[in-house]
């Protein structure tokens, strides 16, 4: 269980409150108007935005004081998910051992994971020579190797076309299910939330509401969501 216990996030001109829990293995979409704080919510869980009040718990243990890399989360950001100067294999390898050289066994695992996301044989390329969809796959492969129980995705596919996005979300679901990982994905598209097929956290009016089943929320949306969806 990932729990945000009466959490308050105060930034300079912005405040967000959250009091909610996400079950282990859940697939949760985070949806809401732009500027409402969807990314901030993920940043607070990932360790990039300070929590000014309340507690962040994973399996009952507080993790709010840990640096990002020590939290049980792997984050995929909106952009700059890959180091452009490193090869695809080196980028993915960072998920295994960021501060050491990779052994032969590690390299085999990297190649295997790349193959499993459909990028077999592309390990020696630099990210700049890949398409946008392929770059997303590299980032997902690295997250898979990080093997953290929580995966945070901050609209990483916003720049991809609709068909490609559907493909990526399917890949995300597969990777998360393989590992029993908990998934939180920010999106502005209710279609993405439906495809995830789980629950949705609505972030609006300075508050992140507890997750509710996505179909239920979309069929009977509260006013803020109705206005946003139009």
């Amino acid at each position, binding site marked *: 269980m990932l729990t945000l216990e009466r959490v308050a996030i105060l930034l300079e001109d912005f405040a967000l409150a959250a009091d909610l829990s996400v079950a282990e293995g859940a697939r949760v979409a985070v949806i809401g108007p732009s500027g409402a704080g969807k990314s901030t919510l993920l940043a607070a869980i*990932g*360790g*990039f935005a*300070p929590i000014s009040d309340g507690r962040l718990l994973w399996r009952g243990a507080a993790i709010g*004081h*840990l*640096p*990002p*890399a*020590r939290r049980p*989360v*792997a*984050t995929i*950001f909106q952009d*700059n*998910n*890959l*180091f*452009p*100067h*490193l090869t695809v294999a*080196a980028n993915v390898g*960072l*998920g295994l051992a*960021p*501060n*050491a050289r990779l052994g032969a066994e590690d390299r085999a695992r990297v190649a295997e994971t790349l193959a499993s996301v459909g990028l077999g044989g592309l390990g020696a390329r*630099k*990210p*700049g020579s890949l398409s946008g969809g392929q770059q997303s796959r590299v980032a997902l492969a*690295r997250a898979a190797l*990080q093997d953290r129980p929580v995966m945070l995705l901050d609209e990483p596919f916003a720049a991809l076309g609709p068909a490609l996005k559907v493909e990526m979300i399917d890949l995300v679901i597969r990777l998360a299910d393989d590992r029993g990982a908990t998934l939180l994905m920010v999106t502005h598209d209710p279609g993405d939330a439906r495809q995830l097929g789980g629950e949705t956290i609505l972030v609006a009016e300075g508050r992140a509401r507890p997750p509710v089943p996505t179909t239920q929320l979309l069929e009977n949306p509260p006013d803020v969501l109705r206005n946003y969806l139009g």
Partner: protein
Amino acid sequence: MARRPRPLTAAGLAAGGLVSALVLGSLAAVASRAQIGPGAGLGPGDWGAVRFTLWQAAVSAAVSVALAVPVARALARRRFPGRGLLVTLLGAPFILPVIVAILGLLMVFGRAGWVNDALAFAGLPAVSIYGWHGVILANVFFNLPLATRLILQGWLSIPAERFRLAASLGLDRRRAFRLIEAPMLREVLPGSALVIFLICTTSFAVALTLGGGPRATTIELAIYQAFRFDFDLSRAALLALLQLGVTALAGTLALTVAVPDAMGAGLGRPLVRWDRGPVWGDGLAICLAALFLLAPLAALLLRGGPALAGLPASVWVAAGRSTAVALGSALLCLGLGLAIAVAAQRMGGRRARGVELAGMLGLAASPLVLGTGLFIMLYPFVRPDRLALPVTALVNATMALPFALRALVPAVARIERDYGRLADSLGLRGLARLRRLLLPRLARPLGFAGGLAAALSMGDLGVIALFADAQSATLPLQLYRLMGAYRMDEAAGAAVLLLGLSLLAFWIFDRGGRVDADA
């Protein structure tokens, strides 16, 4: 997000501390040694040096800026083949060794130079390059390109829409100038002149070779003479304090005026104008400027090229020393710069400004002032000529450090802004972060800064003149000695060699930073 003290931050603090200790220690040594008493103190000649320093800097600044305005305007509004190359060449004097340029100027304006040959042919009396006019000529040679770049920047910063508006309103050229260009010039000219004034107040090599005597001695030259001719350390220290005062005064002045930035990119695009006026005026400005800047180098190459093969062994040995000093200085400068830039980024806020400022301290003291201080500190313990090369490398690195920081600090900030979160989320830290994230992405600014530092050090004729004897001369010093001995062919050959080494040093570093730099 608890923070432990981190090794990279500690390295930056150490680097900042080292530079501050070097600069402030030298200044303290100078201050402690400067005494006024019976038989000591400054004579009328020394005050003459102060006056001349300020005067020649002011005149050089005014002449450079005045001549640069038509050249910059011509470059701003004309397109012609070779324009890009010319604009690039305007940046070259920065890495051109002063002594090389002076020799080139001598080949054109000197006693047996092209100009005097032409005057003799026309039956006119010869002109002499030695004295105040030579000092100003050389200063203008170095600073006209800088002034042109600064003013060109101003011109190109005017939005093209304003000229379009002026054209659509039918404003004539004078009105368009008054409404659009004059305000820009009022903003850019004082700052440009002040930058050049500042540079010229530390004029040493120019005054050493072309000036001298009671009417053309700068403070820096007087410091050198107090060392070399009188070995009067307390007078040298007093003069160094005066020089420091002049630099501080000019620096304070510069703080009150917006100083433009010549390092910025974007000088490639000429303005589209509807009111350009006759082409001959612009053409003349560009041709004269190019001739003035290129003729000395051409003369030098013509004379020195053939002499290269016959250079004495001492020149080659000196070239080896210079290469070692340049390499050492560049690596030291990069190490200090990288450590300070990384630490400044990590600490943020006021402490970051502090450590950055420590790295910039080299701007406050001229090389000769630093050299004087170091000499005073060292000579009770060691023979200064033994340390000539390490001290030169150290002082050169300190002098190049502000430029390195200008390139590195924003680059580190940009990298951390773009990739810091990703690196944090992956747990990339310490040396691994340096090796896998910072160094690869800093390759370009590191290469550029290293190239600048190497070239500046290669051509430096300053602190080495205080410390070196015949056994530890660098190439610029050896070149100066050849000039002093009137062995002009060999001097020209050595100058071509020095020019080649400086450009090569810059090129190798700069190229090295561009290889394999993806995205």
